[in-house]
C-alpha cells in the first residue's frame, strides 16, 4: 500500500510505487484539476505542491512523495481563493484554461518561497507552457502580486503548515 497526504487527508492506495503521482491523482483519486500535458516534465500542466515546492507530478513516482504534504489545485483554495487565484480573475488571465492549474500552482509556490523574485527568478521558475499565450497577463499579475505583497498566504496554510 502507498500512503499519501493529499490536501490534508491521508489516502491509502493499492498502486505500484513507480506510478507517477499525476496518474494516482487523476485516475485513482479522481482529482482531475491537475492536468496531463506532456508526460516528460516539459510543460508544467501537472504542477502540484510537495511540501510547498512546485513539483511536476507526471514524472514524480508516488514512492518519492510518501510522508510529504501534497497539495493540488483543489486543495490550494480550501479556505477561499488565494491571492494568486484572485489576481488570475482580476487580470482575466485564463483562456482555454487547461494549463492554468499548473500555472497557478507554480506561481503560488514561487511567491510563497520568495516574495520578491527578480525577473530572472520568475523566468526560471515559471517555465510552464500556455498555448493560448496568456503570458503578458501572467507577467502583469505576478508583478502586481510582488508589488502589493498580499497578507493572505499564497498557499493554503491549513494544508501546508509544518513543512
Amino acid at each position, binding site marked *: 500500500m502507498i500512503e499519501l497526504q493529499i490536501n490534508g487527508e491521508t489516502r491509502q492506495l493499492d498502486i505500484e510505487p513507480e506510478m507517477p503521482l499525476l496518474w494516482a491523482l487523476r485516475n485513482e483519486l479522481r482529482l*482531475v484539476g491537475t492536468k*496531463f500535458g*506532456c508526460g516528460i516534465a516539459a*510543460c508544467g500542466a501537472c504542477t502540484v505542491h510537495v511540501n510547498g515546492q512546485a513539483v511536476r507530478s507526471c514524472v514524480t513516482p508516488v514512492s518519492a512523495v510518501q510522508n510529504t504534504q501534497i497539495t493540488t*489545485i483543489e486543495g*490550494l483554495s480550501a479556505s477561499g481563493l488565494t491571492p494568486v487565484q484572485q489576481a488570475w480573475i482580476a487580470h482575466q488571465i485564463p483562456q*482555454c484554461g487547461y494549463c492554468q492549474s499548473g500555472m497557478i500552482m507554480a506561481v503560488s509556490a514561487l511567491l510563497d518561497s520568495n516574495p520578491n523574485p527578480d525577473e530572472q527568478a520568475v523566468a526560471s521558475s515559471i517555465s510552464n*507552457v500556455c498555448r493560448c*499565450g496568456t503570458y503578458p497577463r501572467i*507577467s502583469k499579475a505576478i508583478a502586481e502580486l510582488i508589488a502589493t505583497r498580499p497578507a493572505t498566504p499564497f498557499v493554503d496554510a491549513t494544508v501546508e503548515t509544518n513543512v
Partner: protein
Amino acid sequence: MNISRRRFLLGAAVAGGGLLLGYASTRPSRQSIVNRDFAQQGQAFLTTWLRIDPDNIVTVIVPHSEMGQGVLTSLPMMAADELDADWANVRVEQAPATDLYANGVLVKGFAASLGFTAPAFLNRTMDFVTLKAAEILNMQITGGSSSVRFTGELGMRAAGAAAREMLVKAAAEQWDVPASEITTRNSRVYHDASSRSLSYGELATAAAQFEPSRTPVLKRPDQFTLMGTSVPRVDIPAKVDGTAMFGIDAMPEGMLYAAVTTSPVFGGQLQSVGNKDAALQQRGVVRIVELADAVAVVADNYWRASKALAMLQPVFTATDADNRNSSDIFADYNAALDNGERNEDVLLGDAELALANAAEVISANYRVPFLAHAAMEPMNCTVLFRDGRCEVWTGTQDNLGIRGRVASVAGLDENDVMVHPFYVGGGFGRRLPMSTNTIDQATLIAQQFDVPVQTLWSREEDTRQDYYRPAVSSRFRAGFDSNGTLVAWENAYIGQNEPLEAAHLAYSVPNQKIDYVDSPTHVPFGAWRSVAHSQHTFFLESFTDELAWNRQQDPLQFRLSMLADKPRHARVLREAATRAGWGTPAPEGRARGIALQESFGSIVAEVAEVSLTAEGRVRVEKVTCAIDCGRVVHPDNAASQVESGIIYGLTAALYGQISIEQGRVKESNFHDYEMLRLSESPEIEVVLLESDGASVGGLGEPATPPISAAVSNALYALTGQRVRELPLKNYQFLPPPVERGAVDA
C-alpha cells in the same frame, strides 16, 4: 453604426430561415419543440437560444464551444443587450448537441459574406461543392473567428430583440396599453404612465405564446448597454480553482483507459503485434485492441495502459512514403513550381508584359514547414456503447459534427448518439470535425466494450498524428517602372488557399498574376489558426518589405503609398506605427519591422521590436498591434484574443517546425517541438479600432498572420539578413548591423 439595410435584411432573412425566429413556415416551430422537450415547469423558451424562468433568470444557450475565446460571455452579452436583460441575472448554458441547435446562422453568414463558397476554416478536407445544403447546415462548428460576427451579429442579437418584442407584446395585452408606451430595462417591463411593471419571468409564459418576429428591430450602437463593455468572463472562475471540466476529465462510471500507437508513417497499416502475452499479463491490462492502422492497450489506469503499450512490438506495412523526407517534399514543390500546371488565383492587367518592360525586376523564393497544433489538452475522446446507443464525452469545436462522425463510424443513427459538451483545452483548428482520427479510434476501441473507454493520446502521439498546417513554397517576382513605381506582381505558390484570398495583395498594383500549383504530399493537413493566412502573410509582407528596402523607402511609407483606396488599412498601419514609435530611433541594439494583413473581416497591423542575444538568437522585445474589427463587443476579451494570436504566431515563427523523416514526423514532444515561454514573451500593446458602418470582424485568428513577417522584417532592419524560410531558431544572426541609411526604422 446604423444597421445597414443590407445587413438588417440579411439578419432577417437568416432568422426567417427557420432556425431562430419566424417559424411560420414550419409546424411545430423550433421554439415550440424546445418548450416541449427542454422547458421545466414554469420555464419558457422565447426563442431556441433564450429561456426565462419564473424567478426572472434569463438563460442564454450558446451553440459554440468555449475554447478560450470567451464565447460563453460575448454571445450572451449580445443577446442580453438586445433583450434589455439584467446581466447579473443572466445564466449561460452550452447548447446540447441536437439538430435544434444546429448552427445554420454561421454557415449562412459565411455563404452570404463569401458568395456561397466554403467556410475557410473547413479547409480542403471537405468538398463543399458536393455537399448538400442540409448537410452543411447540420453543424455546431466553432471556427473561422466567426462566433461573434455571425452567430452573435446575425443570431444572438436578433434572438434577444425578438424575445424583447414578445415580452412587450405580452405586457401590452395584459395591461391593455399600446406597446409603444412600454419600456424595458434590467429584465423588467415598465408602463410609466400607470406606474406598472412586471418582471420578464412573470411575463415569459404569456410571451412564449407569440411567434418570434422575423424582423426584430435591433438597437443602434449608441443604445447598447452591454456590448462594448468588458464584463468579467463567465468561464474564468472555474478555470482558477481546478473545477473546469475538459473532455479529458470525463469520469463516467466504470471507465477504462486506452493508450494508442498509430502507424508512424501516415497510411501504414497494422501488420502484426509482437509481445502481446507479456503486455496482457501486466497489472490492470484488460485487452489489446488491434485497429486497421493502430494498436491500443486498454487498462484500468492510463499509466498502466501506456506502460503495457510500450512493451508491444507493432509492425506496420511499408508504404510509398517510407523514404520520404521534408527535403523530398520541398524538391517536389520546386519541380511543381518549375513545371507544374498553373491554376489561376488572380489575373489583373498583364504582369508578364509589365515584368518584361520593367526597369527593375526583383525576385525571391519563400517557404515554411509543416506545423502541428499542440493544444495543451492532448487529444482524447471517451465513448460508451450500451443497449444499441452511444454516449460521447469530448471537447470539440463541433459537438453536432462529432455526433454525426461517431454515428457514421459506429454505424448508428445520429439520434442514438449523445455528445456531452466540455470546455476545450485548446482548439486552434485541431478539434474541427474533419480532423477526427482520435474520435474515430476512440469509437472503434470503445465498440469492443460495454463500459466507457477513454482513448487518450500521449503528447508524442498528439504531435505525430496531427492534421498539420501544410508546408508551402511561394515564389515572387516584382517589377518597378522607371519612375520607381511597383507595376507588376507575380506570385506562384503550392496548394489552393483556404481562405481563397490568403495570397491576395492589399496594395494597389496594376498588373498581377497569382497562381497556385498542386503538389500533394502524404502528410495529413487541416485548419491551423488563421489557416492559409499564416503562411501567406509571412510571404507577402516579407517580400513587400524587400521591395521597400530595395527602393530605399521607409517600409511604412512604401506600404501607405499603395493604399490610397484602402483607408482602413492605412489607418491601422499608421496607428500601429505611431504607437510603436516608428520613425524615432529604436533603443540601442534593437530595430523595428512592420506587417499588415486583413483576415476574417478584421484588418491588423503589427510592429515588432527585436534585439539579438549574445548567441545571435532573436529576442522579440515588444509588439504593437492595431486592429480594426469594425465594432468591438468586449474590449478586454478582444485584447486578450489579439495577445493570444500574436503569441501563437510568434511561437511558430521562432520555433515551429514539423520535419518529415522516413515518412514520419520527427518531432515528438515539447523538448523538440518547442513553445514560447513566459520568459520570452514580449510586451504587447493592443490598439482596438472601430469603423462606423463596417461589419463586425473576427478576433480569434486575425492577429496571428502578421507577426512572423513583422519580426523577420525587424531582423532585416537590425542585421541586414533577410529571412525567407521559417522557423527563426534555424538561424544565427550576426549582431553588427549593416548600413541602414535613410530608411532606418
